[in-house]
C-alpha cells in the first residue's frame, strides 16, 4: 500500500486517525443519513435532470398505449358479442404499433440516461476518495472501496429504472382506475384504486421496510466475502506454508453461508409480498365480476365490465415487479449511504484557493504538530527553511517523526500551531493539487500501476513525448533494461510492478518523478529494500540529474555518495543542523 503515513514511526496511525478532533479538519464521525446521501447523489445528477425526466414521460406514453390496447381489444369483442357493429380496427393497430415502438424507445432512452448518471457518480466518487486519501486508504479495505465503486454504484440504477419509473407509471394507472372505473361506478372505482394502492404502493413499501435491514447485511456480507477472498489470494504463500487451506476455505464458506442466509431471508419476504400483490389483482377482478352481477356494488353494464376487466388485467401487471423492486429499496438505500460515506472517519485537509507560486522556498515558522489533543506533541516551535535549489537531508531514527515532516510538507496534514510557507505564502491558502504538482514525491511505497511502462511514466507528466520518456529512463539508469524488453515502453508492468525487479521498479518510479518537472523532489527513504550497490547507483544518478531542483532527502542514514548542502537531524521534536 502506498501510505505515506504507514511508516515505522507512525505505529498507531489508526488510533490517530480515529481520534482526530482537530479543528483544522473536517472529520465526519457521524454516520451519514439516508436523506443526506440521496441529497448528495441528486446534486451530482443535477445536469441529468432533464433527460431523466424526459425518460419518465416516454415511459408514461408507452404505458398509456399498453392500457389502451388491451381495453380496445376486449371492448371490441364485447361490442360484437352485444351485437353493436364494431369500429374499424385502425385504432387497435395504432395502439399496437405505438406500444411496441414506445416501449423499445423508452427502455433504450431511460437506460442510457441512467448509465450516464452512473458514470457521473463514479467520477464524483473517485474525486471524493482522492480527497480523503492523500495518506492512503487507512483502515478502508481495498476490496471494500472497490465494491463501493463498482457494485454499489451499479445497484443505484435500480433507483431510477426499477423504482422511480414504475412508480410514476403506477401513479398514472391509479388515476386511470379512479377516472375510468370511477366514472362507470364510483364505489367500484374507489375499491379497485384502493386495491391497486395496496399492491403498487403499500406492499412495495412494506417490502422495502422489511428488506432494508436485510439489504444492508447482504451488501455487508458481500463486502466481507470480498475481503476474505482478497486475503486468500494475496496470502496464498502463507496459506500453503502453514497448511491453512482447509481453514481458509472454512472461513470463506462461513462468510458465504452468512451471505446466502441473508439472500434467502430476503427472497422469502419478497416472495411473500409478491404473492399478496398477486392476490390484490385477483381480488380486483373478483370485485368487477361482483359488480357485473350486481353483488356488493351497483350493477354495471356488460360492456363496462369488459373494459374494466381488461383495464385491471393490464394495470395490475406491473404490481408484482414493483413489489420485487421494493425489495431492492433497502439495498439501494444502503448502497447510497456507502457511496456517499466513503470518506467517513477520514480527515480531509481543506483545499486552498491560490495556486502555488513559482518560488519554492519552504519555511517552517513555529510549527507545532500532534495527531490530536490526547497525543503528545511530535513537533513544537519548529523553525527551519529549505531554500529553492538547495539539497538537504533530514536524518533521524525510526519513530523520530521524519514521515510526519514529509506529510506536513506535502500538505497531507496541517500544522496545529504556526505556519508553513511555500514561496512566502501560507500553505493553508494554496490548493492541494498545485502544491503536489510542485513537489515530486518518491518513497518505497510509491505505487507502480498495473499498466504499461509508458502509462506509468505519463502519470508524472501526461504531455511528455517518447523522447522525454526515454531521457527520463536514461537519467534514472533503466533505459537499457526497458530497451531490452520485447515491447519496450509498451511492456506491461503487472500488478505492483511484479514483472520487474525491486530495484528496476524503484528506478522506473524515479524516472516518473523526474519527468514531473517538479522543482522540489521529496524523497522519503527512496532506497529501502535495495541492495547496497543499487543504492549507491541510485544516489549517483540523483546527483547528476537533479542539479537545478530542490532535493529533500528523508533517510535514517547516509551512504556517503549524496551531494548535500545541509544535513538536518530530527530528535525530540526539533531539527538540529548537522552540516552546513
Amino acid at each position, binding site marked *: *500500500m*502506498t*501510505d505515506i503515513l504507514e511508516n*515505522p514511526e507512525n*505505529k498507531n496511525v489508526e488510533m490517530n486517525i480515529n481520534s482526530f478532533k482537530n479543528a483544522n479538519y473536517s472529520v465526519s464521525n457521524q454516520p451519514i443519513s439516508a436523506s443526506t446521501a440521496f441529497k448528495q447523489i441528486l446534486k451530482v445528477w443535477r445536469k441529468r435532470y432533464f433527460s431523466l425526466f424526459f425518460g419518465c414521460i416516454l415511459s408514461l406514453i408507452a404505458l398509456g398505449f399498453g392500457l389502451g390496447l388491451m381495453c380496445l381489444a376486449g371492448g371490441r369483442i364485447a361490442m360484437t358479442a352485444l351485437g353493436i357493429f364494431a369500429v374499424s380496427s385502425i385504432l387497435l393497430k395504432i395502439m399496437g404499433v405505438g406500444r411496441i415502438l414506445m416501449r423499445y424507445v423508452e427502455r433504450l432512452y431511460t437506460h442510457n440516461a441512467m448509465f450516464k448518471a452512473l458514470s457521473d457518480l463514479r467520477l464524483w466518487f473517485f474525486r471524493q476518495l482522492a480527497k480523503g486519501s492523500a495518506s*492512503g486508504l487507512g483502515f478502508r479495505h481495498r476490496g471494500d472501496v472497490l465494491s463501493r465503486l463498482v457494485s454499489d454504484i451499479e445497484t443505484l440504477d435500480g433507483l431510477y429504472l426499477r423504482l422511480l419509473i414504475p412508480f410514476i407509471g403506477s401513479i398514472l394507472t391509479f388515476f386511470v382506475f379512479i377516472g375510468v372505473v370511477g366514472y362507470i361506478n364510483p364505489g367500484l372505482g374507489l375499491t379497485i384504486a384502493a386495491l391497486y394502492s395496496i399492491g403498487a404502493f403499500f406492499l412495495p413499501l412494506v417490502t422495502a421496510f422489511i428488506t432494508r435491514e436485510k439489504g444492508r447485511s447482504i451488501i455487508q456480507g458481500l463486502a466481507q466475502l470480498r475481503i476474505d477472498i482478497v486475503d486468500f489470494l494475496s496470502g496464498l504463500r502463507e496459506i500453503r506454508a502453514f497448511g491453512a487451506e482447509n481453514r481458509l476455505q472454512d472461513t470463506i464458506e462461513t462468510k458465504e453461508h452468512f451471505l446466502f442466509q441473508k439472500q434467502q431471508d430476503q427472497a422469502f419476504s419478497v416472495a411473500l409480498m409478491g404473492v399478496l400483490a398477486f*392476490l390484490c389483482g*385477483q381480488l380486483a377482478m373478483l370485485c368487477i365480476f361482483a359488480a357485473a352481477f350486481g353483488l356488493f356494488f351497483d350493477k354495471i353494464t356488460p360492456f363496462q365490465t369488459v373494459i374494466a376487466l381488461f383495464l385491471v388485467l393490464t394495470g395490475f401487471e406491473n404490481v408484482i415487479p414493483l413489489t420485487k423492486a421494493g425489495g431492492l429499496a433497502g439495498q439501494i438505500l444502503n448502497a447510497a449511504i456507502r457511496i456517499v460515506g466513503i470518506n467517513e472517519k477520514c480527515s480531509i485537509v481543506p483545499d486552498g484557493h491560490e495556486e502555488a507560486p513559482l518560488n519554492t522556498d519552504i519555511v517552517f515558522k513555529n510549527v507545532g504538530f500532534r495527531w490530536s489533543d490526547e497525543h503528545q506533541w511530535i513537533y513544537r516551535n519548529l523553525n527551519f527553511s529549505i531554500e529553492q535549489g538547495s539539497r538537504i537531508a533530514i536524518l533521524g531514527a525510526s519513530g523520530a517523526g521524519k514521515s510526519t515532516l514529509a506529510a506536513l510538507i506535502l500538505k497531507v496534514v496541517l500544522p496545529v500551531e504556526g505556519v508553513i510557507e511555500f514561496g512566502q505564502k501560507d500553505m493553508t491558502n494554496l490548493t492541494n493539487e498545485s502544491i*503536489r504538482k510542485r513537489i515530486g514525491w518518491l518513497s518505497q511505497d510509491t505505487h507502480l500501476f498495473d499498466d504499461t511502462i509508458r502509462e506509468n511514466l505519463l502519470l508524472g507528466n501526461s504531455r511528455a513525448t517518447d523522447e522525454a520518456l526515454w531521457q527520463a529512463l536514461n537519467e534514472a539508469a533503466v533505459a537499457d533494461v526497458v530497451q531490452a524488453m520485447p515491447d519496450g515502453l509498451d511492456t506491461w508492468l503487472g500488478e505492483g510492478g511484479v514483472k520487474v525487479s525491486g530495484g528496476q521498479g524503484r528506478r522506473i518510479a524515479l524516472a516518473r518523478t523526474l519527468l514531473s518537472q517538479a522543482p522540489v523532489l521529496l524523497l522519503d527513504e527512496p532506497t*529501502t529494500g535495495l541492495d547496497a550497490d543499487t543504492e549507491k547507483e541510485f544516489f549517483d544518478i540523483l546527483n547528476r540529474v537533479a542539479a537545478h531542483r530542490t532535493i529533500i532527502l528523508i533517510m535514517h542514514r547516509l551512504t556517503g555518495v549524496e551531494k548535500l548542502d545541509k544535513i538536518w537531524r530530527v530528535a525530540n521534536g526539533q531539527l538540529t543542523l548537522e552540516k552546513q
Partner: protein
Amino acid sequence: MRDHKAQIKQWTRQQTRLARRYSIPIIILGLISSVIAVGLAWCAAELLARILITTKSMKMVGFYLAGFVILSILRSAVLFFQEILATKAGIKAKHQLRMSLIHSIMKIGPSVLHHQSSGILSSLMVDQIESLDGYFSRWMPASVLWVAAPLIILVFLTIVEPWLALIIGLCGLMVPIAQAIFGIGAAVAARKQFLAMTRLQARFLDRIKGIATIVLSGRTEDEAQKLLQSADELRRRTMRILRVAFLSSAAIDCAMVIAIILVSVTEGSQFVHHDSWNQISVIHALFALLLIPEFFAPLRSLALAYQDRARLNGTAESVLELPDVKAKQITAPTMLNVGTHAPEIVFDHVSFSWDEARGKAIDDISFDLKQGEILILSGKSGSGKSTIIEMLLGFIQPTAGEIRFNGVALPKIVPDALTKITTWIGQKPVIFAGTIRENILFAKPSASEEALQAALQAASIHPFLSSLPEGLDTRIGEGGYGLSGGQAQRIAIARAFLKNAPLLLLDEPTAHLDPETEKDIFETLKNLIHNRTVVLATHSTASQMFQGLRLDLHHGKLIAQTRVN
C-alpha cells in the same frame, strides 16, 4: 480458436449438468402454474359470457366464482414456492462453483498471480459468481419452460378452439425466429461487455491501491477523467447489448400484439357473420384473449434471462484463462512421506523458466545442503533467489533437473508432508484482516496459550505489544495498517516459532527494513534457526553473521559456491 470455443461449451455444459437437478422442481411448479392459469382464464371467460350474453342461463355462476377464488389462491402458493426454490437453486449452484474455483486456485498456488491480477481474480470469485445467480435461478428453468408452458396452454386451447390455437401458435413461432436473429448478436455483445467490465474493475482496484501516489503526484483530475472515459466506454458497450436485447423483447411484444389484434378481429367478424356460433365463440374468444399474456409470459422470461446465459459464458472465459490445473497434477506411482527431522536438500542440475521468451530464471544449479545446515542465497534482486524458494515451496516445478528431500524426489512427496516440515517467511508477510492473536495463531490454531506466549517471547513481540491499546487483540487491517515493516515481520517470525517446522525458508525477510531493524530481526532469527535446515535468500551484508553454504547468483546462474563453518 475453435478449440477455445469448444472448451467454453464443455465448461458451461458441465456447470449446467451440475445445476440441472435443482431446477427440475421449479420447472414442474412452472407447468402447474400454467395449468392453473388456463383454469383461471376459463372461469373468467365463463363468467364474462354469462354477463355479456343475456340469453345464457345464470346457472353455475357460483361455481365459477368459487373456482376463480380457489385457483387464485392455489396459484399464489405455486408462485411463492417457485420463488423460494429458485433462490435455493441459485445459492447451491453458486456455492459449488465458488468452491471449485477456490480448489483450482489453491492447486495452482501463488503463481496464479503471474497470469492474472488479484483484482480480476477477486471479481471473478465474488461478483461474477454472484451474477450467475440469474443463470441458475432464472435461465435454467426458463430454458425449459419457454417451450413447455406455451405448449400446455396451446393444447388446452386446441381442445377448445383449434382455429384460435393456430393463430396464437403461429404468432408464438415468430418469437424463436426473432430470438435466433437478435439473440446471437446480443450474446456476443454481452460477452464482450462482460470482459470490458472485468478489465475496468481491475483498473479501478489498481488505481485504488495507488490512490496516494495519484493524489501526491497532483494527478487526481487526469485520473478522474480517464476513469470517466472507461466508465463511458462501459456504458456504450452496455447500450450496444441492450439495443439488441430490447429488440428481441420488442419482437415478443410484437408477436403478442399481433395475436391480440388477430384474435379480437377474427372472432369479431365471426360473431357478425355466424350468429349461430355466437354463444360458444364469445367464451372461446375471451378465453383466448385472457390466455395470450400467459402464453407469452414464459417467452418473455426467457428473453429477460438471456443476458444471464451470456454471463455464464463470460465467466467460463475468465475461468479458462487460469493456467491449466490438470497439467500440473503429477501422477506419481508412490507418494512418499519425508521424516519430521531437519531434511537434507539436493538440487541436481535444476533449471526453470517462466516462459520461453524471457529466458531462464534459474540456469543449471546444483548444490547439496546437509541436515541442519544454513544455505545463504545471495545476489541482486532478479538473480533467481526467490525462484529457488518458490520451488522449495512446491509452487513451481523445475523445467529441467531434480530436487530431492532426504533422497526423495520432490514430485513424489505428499504435498501435505512437505507443508508440515516447512515454514516460510517472505519479504512482506501477508497480514490477514483480524487481530494480532488471530494472525499469529494462523500458523497453528490449536496452539495452547503457553505456546503462543513462548512464540511471542521468542519473536520479541512484547515490546511493541505493550504500546498497543488492546495488546494481542488489537485489530490490524488488510496489509497490516498501523504496523511497521519490522513489526509485521516479527508477527511472521512468531508464526514460524509457533509452527516449529524443521525446514525454514527465508525469502529476503529484511528487504524492506532499515539497518537497525534489520539487525534486530536477524538477531531474533538466530534463535529460530537453531536445529533447523535453513534457506536464507538475502542481499544484505548483515547476513555474514550466518555460517553455512553460500551461493552467489547472477542472472539465474551460480557464480560462486563457498562453505563457511
